[in-house]
């Protein structure tokens, strides 16, 4: 259950709209079902009171929306950011993707978000979902009510939460948390420990399900190119004919490589994948390697930091040594 209530968000946003600090509000909007939450722009206190939602399904990261939203008018935009969202926010500022002066950030503490796929696996025909401290009560259409442990429904990225600390905000609701010592690299290490044949089989199974919907790329706060090479017919890389042995690997390697040193590990790619491909494991491999080869680096921890991929020392290890070093760390 989230520490801050929905009403606290509504009140705060309404007050800032009323005193003219901000002109509109980026927040989560109520949908058809309790797990159905849409990012939306709110203009009035009435809309906020009616439709704003803050619950265990507010996983969407608003940082990327700020690029377009800040360009729409001169008024400030209010945005609610969870701790992990603030890393993407800082990373986008580092890349000068929007004007900080046009944003008013309210940090909201986050108790972790639930994975809708896990919820749907646990219950068929969901009529309603209510939160009761560490329990989730699901009212179903045909099987009565189910009470489940909240922890069993948490999204992977929240089980392995890297930080409860907001790295950027103008105002904070509730208490700020700490950077956590997470086990987020364990899954990567488990894959590294496999034999090459097993690794190949693992990724072949995962990536062959890719339908090239581009959701992972489009949601990614680090993917902000105006025109992606994979959409550009002149690039020689654009190819809609998916489902071949090669294309998915090409796409996913390059997608992950292009955000090396900029990926904050927010986990949006895996959240949105309709085929439930664990795409974050590609990005996390790069993060783990960077930490390992060049010293610990967390993208978005601060504005203006220089990513290791655009930096060097004269003593760096050689590429072929790097691959071998993976063996020792597995």
């Amino acid at each position: 259950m989230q520490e801050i209530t929905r009403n606290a968000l509504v009140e705060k946003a309404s007050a800032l709209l009323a005193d003219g600090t901000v002109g509109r509000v980026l927040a989560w909007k109520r949908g058809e079902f309790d797990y159905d939450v849409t990012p939306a722009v709110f203009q009035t206190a009435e809309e906020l009171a009616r439709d704003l939602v803050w619950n265990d399904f507010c996983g969407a990261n608003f940082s990327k929306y700020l690029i377009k939203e800040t360009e729409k008018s001169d008024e400030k935009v209010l945005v609610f950011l969870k701790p992990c969202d603030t890393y993407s926010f800082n990373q986008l500022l580092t890349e000068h993707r929007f004007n900080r002066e046009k944003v008013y950030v309210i940090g909201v503490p986050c108790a972790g978000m639930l994975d809708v796929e896990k919820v749907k696996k646990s219950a068929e025909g969901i009529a309603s979902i209510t939160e009761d401290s560490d329990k989730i009560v699901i009212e179903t259409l045909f099987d009565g009510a189910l009470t489940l442990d909240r922890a069993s429904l948490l999204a992977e990225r929240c089980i392995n939460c890297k930080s409860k600390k907001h790295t950027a905000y103008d105002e904070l609701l509730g208490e700020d948390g700490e950077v956590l010592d997470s086990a987020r690299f364990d899954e990567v290490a488990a894959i590294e420990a496999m034999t090459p044949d097993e690794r190949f089989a693992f990724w072949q199974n995962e990536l062959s399900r890719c339908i090239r919907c581009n959701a992972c790329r489009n949601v990614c706060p680090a993917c902000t190119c105006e025109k992606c090479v994979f959409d550009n017919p002149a690039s020689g890389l654009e190819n809609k004919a998916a489902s071949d042995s090669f294309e998915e690997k090409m796409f996913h390697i390059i997608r992950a490589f292009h955000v090396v040193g900029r990926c904050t590990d927010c986990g949006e790619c895996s959240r949105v994948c309709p085929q439930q491909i664990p795409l974050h494991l590609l990005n996390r491999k790069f993060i783990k390697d960077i930490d390992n080869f060049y010293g610990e680096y967390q993208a978005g921890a601060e504005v203006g930091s220089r990513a290791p991929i655009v930096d060097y020392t004269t003593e760096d290890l050689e590429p072929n040594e790097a691959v071998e070093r993976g063996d020792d760390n597995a």
Partner: protein
Amino acid sequence: MQVTEYKPLIVAFCCNWCSYAGADLAGNNRLAYPADVKIIRVPCSCRVNPTFILRAFQRGADGVIICGCHPGDCHYTSGNYYTRRRMALLFSMLDYLGIERERTRVEWVSAAEGAKFAATMNDFVSTVAALGENKRLEDLRCKK
């Protein structure tokens, strides 16, 4: 019965200032290396975008090698230092995906090292030949 020997196709990206000149020197000195190595000249080893490497595999390469100036000798001061970091991360990723790590390599070859160029290529070709055809990053559409 005649058995056709398997010959791997190797793509070598060579920097214009050092390694390409090194390859020239190998030629001038009549040092032999297999004709299966196709050299692509690039202004600097850091011109090699990861998509070039994947594209080479897609189009039938069995191994890809990137050759640049020795660290510290880059014509553009620091290009090869960036190459070194990029390729360290890319090769590690390819290995993570289960693609044979011996199929990719980075070597620093100066304009004076004709012998090293030939030896490097001989070694790389025999390493890749031992692995056989690239099956894990192939594009079935490009097969003849």
